[in-house]
């Protein structure tokens, strides 16, 4: 019998969410779909969302793990507000994700998982597939488990192992539905399961079965296509924030000709940086998994003292533990980058969820007057650029730099136009070797003291956490010297404003309204502003990546606007700083749910601010 002809529909953009048990392999499925989508040439943005428990009891709502992917034939900024398609591997996954789905969206469910036990675990009083509660959605019921088992009939794998392949069946089905090639995943399977050909074969079979299921079954009448995005010319790869950050620091190490030393203690969501850097020891990367957060940073300080590009990676609770050591780096004026991949707080908080609530900690969370440079990347790929910036500033100014990434940037990914490494500028390093006139706290024109490494003849000196006498660096309790040194350290950091880009204003520069954000919310804010401007609103936008010191023109920019709206994933930390630093009115817009902004949320907030009627025009 001839197969029914399937219609192919062109779409501009699609948001898909895969959801299942923590053990269902949803992160893997999502990242495979992402890599293939990147290769197809779509613009994309991802949002993995998983629980802190590694394997929560199967079937429960708190064990649900999700992976959202937004892909498009044009430029996009966010992982999408609401999925068009939800792939739900069990009732709990359906329950936890349904409310995000677009009205009329599609739900692909593994109908085999909707048994009485799973329905009870998900606390469904009746089966939603039968009680008409999903009316209004396009529900596609697929016996995923059964079909996977049938496909693997001949396999020697155990029943349990076979059933674990069902995510690949779902992946194959989705590849067919969105006209994606299967080859990239086939290649990946070959490498990944090099040593277990049985597993490679089973997953391949399951995926191909899913793909052909899409083609042959009458359940799917339509197939979709999302054409490649018109990105600027170049070579691209898909990259997550943590990956971009790691290779950014390797690049900084090559460009500064310094060995990269990472002192780190595992912590979610920063550990992947430690993993990534540990794989690249042929770049002379020196990773040290320390006994605790304090050892991680103090070992990095020791490495910096002896001439390495030293960094330490952690998340909010780890920064709290490192606080005293950061002060030590302030006092000893050594280059050091402290990477804080922010997560929900306080205390242990929400380890796997994102938040921007460490800004005040980064700026002020130390005893005494202890200024550090504070930087924040704005997108996953920007984590690369800001790693270079953080290294450049730390080395040039002999100063600790706080680098504020977040869970959303760290785990999210986007296409990255790979830069030509030859065009990336060198990071100059000056080690002091001349004996003549040396003093450990001598200052150059930028107020920077010399970096004199142990092993250099004639420059023996002592540094430490006690207040230092200007120039000589001897311990000093002199009241006037202390005030002088406190002001000097502050001035040194402040002067860096002359060496960073001005704040750029985008959109309608002459608007009365300015939307000001920082760090990882860039995509959501930019998307909201873009949509409103397309609808005729007049809006200006700035985004801070340099938070201490602020760009030199910040005050002048802010003062031009009648209303400033500051969306942040915290209680208003940047708002507070802008108000006190620049004496301007700022309206905070806050979300503290461990989730990134949806651009629609920011859009409605701006609408209510400017009044829907005139869209910001008089």
């Amino acid at each position: 019998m001839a197969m029914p002809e399937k219609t192919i529909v062109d779409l501009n953009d699609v948001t898909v969410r895969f959801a299942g048990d923590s053990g269902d392999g949803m992160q893997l499925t999502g990242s495979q779909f992402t890599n293939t989508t990147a290769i197809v040439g779509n613009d994309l943005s991802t949002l993995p969302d998983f629980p802190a428990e590694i394997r929560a009891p199967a079937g429960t709502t708190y064990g649900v793990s999700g992976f959202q992917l937004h892909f498009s034939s044009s430029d996009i900024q966010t992982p999408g507000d609401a999925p068009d398609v939800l792939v739900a591997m069990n009732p709990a996954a359906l329950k936890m994700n349904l409310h995000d789905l677009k009205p009329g969206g599609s739900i692909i469910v593994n109908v085999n998982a909707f048994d009485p036990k799973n329905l009870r675990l998900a606390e469904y009083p009746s089966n939603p597939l039968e009680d008409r509660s999903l009316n209004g959605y396009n529900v596609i019921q697929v016996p995923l488990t059964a079909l996977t088992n049938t496909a693997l009939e001949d396999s020697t794998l155990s029943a349990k192992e076979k059933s674990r392949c069902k995510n690949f069946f779902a992946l194959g089905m989705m590849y067919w539905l969105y006209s994606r090639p299967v080859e990239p995943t086939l290649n990946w399977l070959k490498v990944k399961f090099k040593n277990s050909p049985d597993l490679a074969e089973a997953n391949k079979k399951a995926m191909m079965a899913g793909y052909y299921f899409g083609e042959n079954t009458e359940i799917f009448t339509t197939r979709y296509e999302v054409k490649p995005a018109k990105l600027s010319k170049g070579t691209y790869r898909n990259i997550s924030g943590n990956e971009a950050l790691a290779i950014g620091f390797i690049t900084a190490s090559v460009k500064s000709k310094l060995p990269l030393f990472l002192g780190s203690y595992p912590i979610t969501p920063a550990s992947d940086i430690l993993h990534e850097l540990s794989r690249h020891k042929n770049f002379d990367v020196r990773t040290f998994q320390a006994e605790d957060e304090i050892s991680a940073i103090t070992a990095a300080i020791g490495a910096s003292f002896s001439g390495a590009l030293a960094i330490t990676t952690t998340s909010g609770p780890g920064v709290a533990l490192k606080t005293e050591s950061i002060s030590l780096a302030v006092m000893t004026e050594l280059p050091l980058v402290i990477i804080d991949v922010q997560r929900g707080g306080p205390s242990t908080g929400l380890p796997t969820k994102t938040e921007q609530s460490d800004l005040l900690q980064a700026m002020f969370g130390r005893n005494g007057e202890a200024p550090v440079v504070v930087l924040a990347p704005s997108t996953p790929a920007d984590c690369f650029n800001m790693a270079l910036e953080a290294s450049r500033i730390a080395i040039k100014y002999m100063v600790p730099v706080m680098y504020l990434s977040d869970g959303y940037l760290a785990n999210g990914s986007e296409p990255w136009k790979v830069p030509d490494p030859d065009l990336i500028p060198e990071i100059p390093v000056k080690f002091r070797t001349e004996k003549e006139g040396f003093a450990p706290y001598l200052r150059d024109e930028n107020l920077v003291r010399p970096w004199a490494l142990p092993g250099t003849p004639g420059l023996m000196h002592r540094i430490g956490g006690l207040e230092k006498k200007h120039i000589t660096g001897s311990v000093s309790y002199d009241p006037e010297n202390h005030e002088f040194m406190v002001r000097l350290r502050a001035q040194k950091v402040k002067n860096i404003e002359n060496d960073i880009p001005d704040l750029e204003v985008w959109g309608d520069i002459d608007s009365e309204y300015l939307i000001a954000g920082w760090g990882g919310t860039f995509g959501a804010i930019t998307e909201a502003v873009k949509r409103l401007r397309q609808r005729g609103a007049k809006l200006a936008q700035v985004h801070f990546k340099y938070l201490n010191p602020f760009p030199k023109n910040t005050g002048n920019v802010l003062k031009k606007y009648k209303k400033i709206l500051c969306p942040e994933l915290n209680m208003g930390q940047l708002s507070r700083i802008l108000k006190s630093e620049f004496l301007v009115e700022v309206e905070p817009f806050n979300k503290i749910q461990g989730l990134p902004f949806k651009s629609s949320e920011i859009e409605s907030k701006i609408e209510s601010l400017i009044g829907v009627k005139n869209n910001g025009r008089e």
Partner: protein
Amino acid sequence: MEENKKQIQDSAFAKASADEQEQVIKYSAKDFASDQDVRWCPGCGDYSILAQMQRVSPDLGIKLENFVWISGIGCAARFPYYMNTYGFHGIHGRAPAIASGVKLNRPDLSVWVATGDGDLLSIGGNHFIHACRRNIDIKILLFNNRIYGLTKGQYSPTSEKGKKTKSTPLGSIDYPFNPLALAIGSGATFIARSLDRDAKHLQAMMKRAAEHKGTAFIEVFQNCNIFNDGAFELLTEKETKADNVLFLEHGKPMLFGKNNEKGIKLDGLNPKVININDGEFSINDIWVHDEFDPNTSRAHIISQFSEMESLPTPVGVLRQETKPTYEEEYHKQIENFKKTWGTGDLKKLLFSGNTWEVN
């Protein structure tokens, strides 16, 4: 990259002339004294430790500029200021971690830690045990005065139970750490003890520590004449020293007493004091000390002597062991990885993974 790294490895001393190389051998104790006024209380045991270190250092065959002294917080932690070497006065308890970072990044340097009982065993306990566990090649000098000096007289983790101090007016109820036992348990590969008042012995221990490859730990009993005066009097005063201190020497029987008439006999797992002149026992019954005993149990028994009634306090090298150091393995891994995969190529790294072209 290689070029700059070489500069870091060798620093500038590669350019030093033959004359300067000669000078290395001719250091005197004075060369190791910095221009800073020493600010410990008069009569403090720290003076002796500093003097012995300055005396020993010229003979270690290490260039002045290749010494790095690292400390945490406390009276002992001021030590680096008084040594004319590279120095880092860190924060409380963290000296072993700072030292680990220095040594990992620069294995060519001779890295020393000056620390006290509060610094190393209380706030810095974690770093101490992990440095020992890794066998990283740093030298740790514990100035143990069994009291908090810089904060003016609270009990420490090595103070004896029942000690009355400002913070324990009714007597402390804490059981103290035995630093030697802790070091053995943590896997340190060189473990010794000495006395601030015994200049020669202390110097010998410092030299031995310097020669050792791996974590070397020396506990120095140090008198705090302000807050815990006389804590080690029995061990340091002429009249009582011989009967209370056992000088451990490799391959020698464990004898002590004014005329070396007493010795230790190991009875199963129990050490006991016997007299070799009383007719019942001879020198052949005395336990012969073996620093290199691969079994740590016997060193552990020795470390407990001072807590056992009627047994003398052992000083000297308890045990040592040769095994690869952490920084050796660390750099070997990097070198082997480079050999297998080739030195890192930035272009390859940036363009790795699945890439696609947009034209």
